[in-house]
Structures are given as structure tokens and as C-alpha cells.
């Protein structure tokens, strides 16, 4: 769907005379990588530890430096396996962090959009490392997981392009260096 949308918006941009994405735009595409993931049962709640390596692309970094806030989401989906049928989605939880530049202090502020907690960092990578390290994230109550063998979860981290300013969205759909997300990483509850 996104590829189709990219193609259509790209065609429109070409038609509007702004040209396709250039070779330079591909130079630094950034990379989101989910390296470790584990779910633990603590006090009847499954908590997720996810560690990822997040590197922004040049274009995203420029946007951040230009005052654009970026939202990075950890998306978690829990499925129940079913025989002879598609697996059913039991729960979907998302943890979002917003990264923005604070001009006066020249620091990057990371705001946990769930709790409102703010942390400041001098370097953008430090901020990204903080976002990429999500520990003790409660994902589902153990009561729901009646038979752990039949359940599995998957998670990914991604830059939410739909949270970007509207003027950036066509470009965010068009250019690959805005498409920053990890693969889905799966774990089991056993």
C-alpha cells in the first residue's frame, strides 16, 4: 500500500515539476534495527524489554535540526494461534517517544508520550539510544494469555510519518529515507 502510495505521489510530484528523488537523497537513508527482545512475566503482567539501534537518515536529522519533532513508536502486537484459520490478534499496544530539539539549551528532549516524562540529551544519538532501549514495557496481562504455547507477539520500532507536519507527508511517503522502521521481531510466551 505504501509503495503504491509512494508511486502515485511520486508521479504527482514529477508532474508538478519537482523531480524524482535524487541520488543524494539516497546517500544516507538511516537504519532502525531491533536487536533484542524479550517478554518477562512480572506480577502477572508480561513486560517487554526491547533494545534497538536507531539511526536517523540525513533527511530526518535535518528535519530534527530544523525544528521538526519526530515521533518514534514501539508497536507491539499479540496473536493467538488458531488451527486451520488465520491467527487472531489479541492485543495491540504502542509506546511513543517524541524527539525534538530545544534551541535554547541545544539539547534534544525525548518525551514519553504515554507518561509525559522528558529526558534531555546533548547528542541526538544518545536520545535515540534512549528511545531504542525500552525496558519493562507492560504489554499484556497474564490472565489473557491462558495457554502461553498458543500465543506469540511481535514488535517493531518505526518513525511515525503520519505524525510529521502535513507539508512533509508527501515527501515522507515518497522518499525511502523517511521510511525508517525495523522488521517485525517475533517472540513466544513460553
Amino acid at each position, binding site marked *: 500500500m505504501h509503495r503504491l*502510495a509512494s508511486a*502515485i*505521489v511520486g*508521479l*504527482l*510530484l514529477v*508532474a*508538478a*515539476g*519537482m523531480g524524482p528523488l535524487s541520488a543524494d537523497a539516497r546517500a544516507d537513508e538511516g537504519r532502525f534495527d531491533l536487536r533484542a527482545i524479550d517478554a518477562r512475566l512480572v506480577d502477572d503482567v508480561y513486560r517487554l524489554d526491547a533494545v534497538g539501534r536507531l539511526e536517523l537518515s540525513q533527511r530526518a536529522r*535535518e*528535519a530534527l535540526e*530544523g*525544528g*521538526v519533532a519526530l515521533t518514534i513508536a514501539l508497536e507491539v502486537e499479540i496473536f493467538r494461534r488458531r488451527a486451520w484459520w488465520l491467527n487472531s490478534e489479541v492485543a495491540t499496544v504502542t509506546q511513543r517517544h517524541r524527539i*525534538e*530539539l*530545544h*534551541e*535554547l*539549551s541545544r*539539547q534534544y*528532549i525525548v518525551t514519553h508520550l504515554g507518561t509525559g*516524562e*522528558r*529526558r*534531555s*540529551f*546533548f*547528542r541526538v544519538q*544518545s536520545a535515540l539510544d534512549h528511545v531504542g532501549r525500552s525496558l519493562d514495557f507492560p504489554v499484556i496481562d497474564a490472565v489473557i494469555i491462558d495457554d502461553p504455547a498458543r500465543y506469540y507477539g511481535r514488535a517493531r520500532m518505526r518513525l511515525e510519518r*503520519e505524525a510529521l*507536519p*502535513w*507539508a*512533509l*507527508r*508527501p*515527501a515522507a*511517503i515518497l522518499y525511502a529515507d523517511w521510511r525508517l522502521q525495523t522488521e517485525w521481531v517475533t517472540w513466544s510466551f513460553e
Partner: protein
Amino acid sequence: MVIRVMQRLANSAWPMVGLFALLLLSLYLLANFAGNIERFGQFYVPLLLLNALGIGFITVLIGTNTWNLVRQFRERAAGARLTARLVAMFVVLALVPVTIVYSFSLQFIRSGIDSWFDVEVERALDDALELSMASLDLHAEGLRRSTERLAARLDTTRSRADLREDLHDMRVDIDASRLALYSDHNWMVASSQRGDRGGLLDDRLPGDLVERVRSGDSFAGLDPERGDQMQVRVVVPLANEGVVTFISPEDQVADEAQPEWFLLEALYPVPGEIHALASRVQSAVGTHRELVFLREPLKTSYILTLSLVLLLSVLTAVWAAFFSARRLMLPIHSLADGTRAVAEGNYATRLPASGRDELGFVVRSFNEMTRRLRHASDQARESRLQAESQRAYLEAVLERISTGVLTIDAEGMLYTANSAAARILGLDLAPRTGRRLADFASDHPALSQFLNVVLPHIEQEAGEWREEFELPGRAGAAGERQIIVCRGARLPDREDLAGGWVIVFDDVSAMVKAQREAAWAEVARRLAHEIKNPLTPIQLSAERLRHKLLEQLPQAEAEMLDRSTWTIIQQVDAMKGMVRAFADYAASPAADMARVDINELVTEVADMYSGHADGCRIELDLEPGLPWLLADRSRLRQVLHNLIKNALEAQRGHGERLVGLSTRRRDGAEGPAVELAVRDHGPGIPTELLDRLFEPYTTGKLRGSGLGLAIVKKIVEEHRGGVQAVNHVDGGAMIIIELPLPRADREAAPAEVAQ
């Protein structure tokens, strides 16, 4: 299916108007996103896609229209060239102003967005930011120095509780919101914070701050972590000057992990006025920076929206051009189709009314023209039907009259011939129509003789003429000769008749025969009457002479008288018989018609002859199951007697006399009939007698009245039958009688009826 739906959509206005309105609305929303980002921001890309798909759809429709137009153009369809010209004109008319507006709009968008970003304003904002930062740095610098002095006073070798006490005292002294001591591994050792302060601070310092301070320099800067209250954070490194005693085992610091450094963190609230100013500067700079960064994407988005609007307008114009051209051309197409239909003879063509403009006038005129043409055509057809009806009537009359009618054109070709002509001449003339009369003279002897009479008159181009002549008899007509009365007249040489001749002829044989028979009957009646009267006195006189004189005369005279009177008496008897025969012929009694089984009758009569000992034998060959005849039984019996007698007499002196009697069913010229044949094995009938055998006083015998066969013929004709005499190929004569079956009993056999 898909193509049909596309063509339907492409040809109908309202779905397209709806689609255009929808796309225009979405484009309006796109164009107004700047003011409603929060409300409509999430719909931006879907709307963009909707427009792209809509425009793609319209493009496909226009492609369909174009393809149709190209196809019509190639097929040289009526109006295709004009449609193409109209479409091209509309497209050019739409494209030129739209393109001009588009190019100016592009310019306005670029310059308009650029005008938001005044260099002076930008510089002023940067300066304000710099000033704020400098001011805060200055403030922070003072706080750093006081914190460093404080750090110099701190004894890190004291216990944790003591340290906490020290920190508390110091914090109160310097009016900090928080004072905390961390190990170089970023573990909090002790802290003190203002009671009313929220516990948002973590137990650790930001990692990159620790790294920064590890270099030995203290840090003083703004802490942005609390959005509502700006703070200055000062972090001062302290060298570990002795063994730290406060590290407890539960702090998980082993001996080898004795801290080399401590970090003293102090948080100072920024004074309210500075905080407010700095916050506003931060907000304004942040917004402006974002705007600057989004300048190009904004232009792109606006140009994209504008381009979509332009594309939609152009496509709308092109589609409208096709639609309008088609609407305009509709009456012209109708006219072309209507003209073609009229050319093919369909005068009922009516075109749908098309408004009150000039085209509407043409359409109305066309409809009026076709109405008049139809009227004229109907009248012509009516006249033709009338003419055909009259012709058919004339033909029917000609077919049903007994007079033969032939028409011959000016070239001497047979033009028409009615069925009576064919019947009289005995051959089918229809296949010979259109051929020269002279060419088929040899086809048939009767025709040849007919033409011998007719052709000289035609060749002489006589005006009117009349001839009477005989034709040889046809087969099945008892060999009788036909007496023909023929009249001819020249047809007027006019444009509608083109000259030629009409020849009318009648077969008057029957009439002549009837007249002859009537004359014979009269002759017979008078003869009988005239002869019969003196016969009785003659006979009586002769008998009296005989009676009176025979005994008185001498022997010699008596013998002579005896012979003479005997002869007179015998001859008078013979003459009486002859007179009776004449009387019978002249005065036939009324026939008593009844159902007769011919086979039974034949058998009955044959039995009367079979018992004779004079050597005669009757041979029967009767077809079983013959239908009833409606006939006078006694008269038919007379017919059989006459014929059998004739047959026997014809074989007199031939030893055994054999007569063959046969019956069979046959389909005669007048319908189903029963054929009765009587055959002898005598010398046959002389050829010269064949034609007149059935006329009175025609006989081949030495003795006979010559009325036997005439009576046979008379009786047969009273039964509406026919009689024919032929010589058999194996010798002997054969009389064939054909008696028609009554209409109702043609299928019923006597046996079936009896049942």
C-alpha cells in the same frame, strides 16, 4: 463489461459532475490544510491519493473517448471530423487560460511563501536566541562558580547520611531546587531536593552529560526537562581524595570499583522574568525554524495541490469538450443516420426533436421531408397495389374463361397465354413465354397448325382478322378433331402497351358436336316417324296379298308370291327394327341415376354371354374395390350389351370369339374416374373410321343400323364420361369408356360402404 461501464460513465454527465465536485471539494480541503492541520492533517495523504485516483479515472475516461474518436475518424464515420475539430477547439480554449493562470500562480506561491521569511526577522530571531542563551549562560556561569565553591567544601569521605545532611544544608544556603552527588558510574550517592518539587528527575544523570563532565570541566547549562519551569543545571566533578566509606555492599560497588570521581549536580530555578522571556524566544525560534525547514515542502505541497487543481480543470475541460461535442453532434449523427435510412428506402425514419436552434430547424425539416416522402411512397404503393389487384383480377378472369387468349409483343414473342389457351392447344405455354412464336411451331402438331393460321396474319400486320379451322384431336380427347374459331387484333402501339397482337380463340367442337347431334336426333325422329307410318300398311298389305292369293294362284306364281311377300314382310320387320333404333336414339328416356357397382354390373352382363354355345368367351379383368358410380343401371347395361355385341360381331368367322372386359380406377383429366375397356380380337377398326366411329350411320359391319356406338357415346356423355376407340397394338379394337366418380364417393369402395 468494464468497457461498457466506462463508456457509459464517459457518456453520462451527472456521475462525472459528481466526481468533479468531490475532487474539487477534496482539493479545496488540501489547499486549506495550512489553517486546519490538527483537524484534517491525518486526511492529507488519503485525499491526495483520492485525487490522484480520481484524476487517473478521468484520464482513462478521456482516453476511452479519444480512442472512440480515433476509431470513428478512421472509419470515416459521419461527424467524426467535426467532433475532432470541436474537441480540439475546446481543449485549446481551456488550456491556454488555465496554463497562464497556472504559471502565474506558481510564481505567486513561490514568492508568497518566500515572503514569509524576511531576512531581518530571521536575524532578529537568531539574535534574540543568542541573547537569551548569552543571558542564561551568564546566569549559569555565576551559579557554576557558586556550585564549584560549594563542591570544594563537600567532604566526600563522610557517611551517606552525613552527606545528605551536608547537601541539605548547602541546598538551603544556595537556594537550589536540588543538590545531588553521583559516583563516576552515575550512581546517586546522596541528594536533597526541595520538598514541593515533583520527582521527575531520574536517579541518574544523562549519560552524555556524565561523559562530558568526565573530561574535568564542570557543566552549567539550561535543563529543558521540565517544560513548565526552566532550570539551570550545574554539574561539577569532584576528585575522590580518599577511601570512600559510604559505599555499602548493596550499592554493588566493589573495591576495584572505587569511584575516581564524584559529580555534584545542582539545579537552580531560572528567575520568573527570565524564564518567561526565554520561553517565548524558544517558542518563536522553534516555530520559525520549523517554518524555515518546511519552506520547500510547503511550496511543494501547494504546487502539488495547484497542479492537481490544474490537472483536474484541464481534464474536466477535455472531458467537457468531448461531452459538448458529442451533444452538439448528436442531431448531426441523427441526420446522417436518417439520411442513410431514407436513401435505403426507409421513409418512416423520424429524428428526435433537438431543441429550438438551427439544428432543431433542420431536424424538423428533415422529419417533414420524410413525412411527405412516406405519404408519396404510400400513395405509390397503393397505386401499385391497385394496379396489381386489377392485373390479378384480369388474370383470374382470363384464367377462368374457356376462351384461349394469347398476347404477342411487337417482336413476335409470346407475351402471355392463359390456361384455356394451353388447354385448347394441348401444351403448356408458360415455359415458352418470351420466345418467338415461329421458334416453337415444331414443338407440337396442334400448335404448328394453329401457328400456320395465325402467323401469316401477324406477318402481314393485319388489323383484325377471324379464322375458323380444325386442329387434330389431342390424346385423351377421343381422337376427335377440334374446331377452332380464332380472332386476332393488333394492340395499339402506345407507350404503355408497346404494340403487339392479341389472339383470342375458342374450341367450338363441343358446340358443333351438340348441333350435329341435335340435327341427327331430329333426322332420326323424322325418319322414324316418316318411315314407321307406311311400314305397317305395307306389311299388312303384303300379308293380305299372301293370304288372299297364295292359295288361288298356280304353283309357280304362288311360290313367287310367297317369296315376294315373305321378303316384303321380312324387310318391313327389319325396317321396323331400324325405326325403333332411330326412335331410341332420338328420344332417350330420363336417366335414373343410382349407385352402381360397375364390377357387379359387368359380371352380370358377362354371365349372360358366357353360357352361349356359339364359341364366345368373355374374359374379365376387374380391379377389386372400385368405388360406386352414380349411373343409370339399365342404360349402362345397354352400353355393355352394345359393346359386347359389337365385339362378338367383329369376330364373326374367327372361331372362338374372345371379348375382354376390364375395369380399373384412373385419374382422368376431370378427376378420378373408372375406366371400362371392351376389347375384341377382330380385325380392328379401319383408320378412316376412327375419327367418326361414334357418329350415327357409321359402321364397319355389313349389317347394322350404325347407331350402336352412337347410342353408347350418347349414354356415356349423359353420365359426363368419355368414350374412345383405339386399335390395340396386339390386334383387335378396344373401346375405352371413362366414367367419372361422384365427388362424395370417390374414396368409398362398395364393400366399405356396405359395411
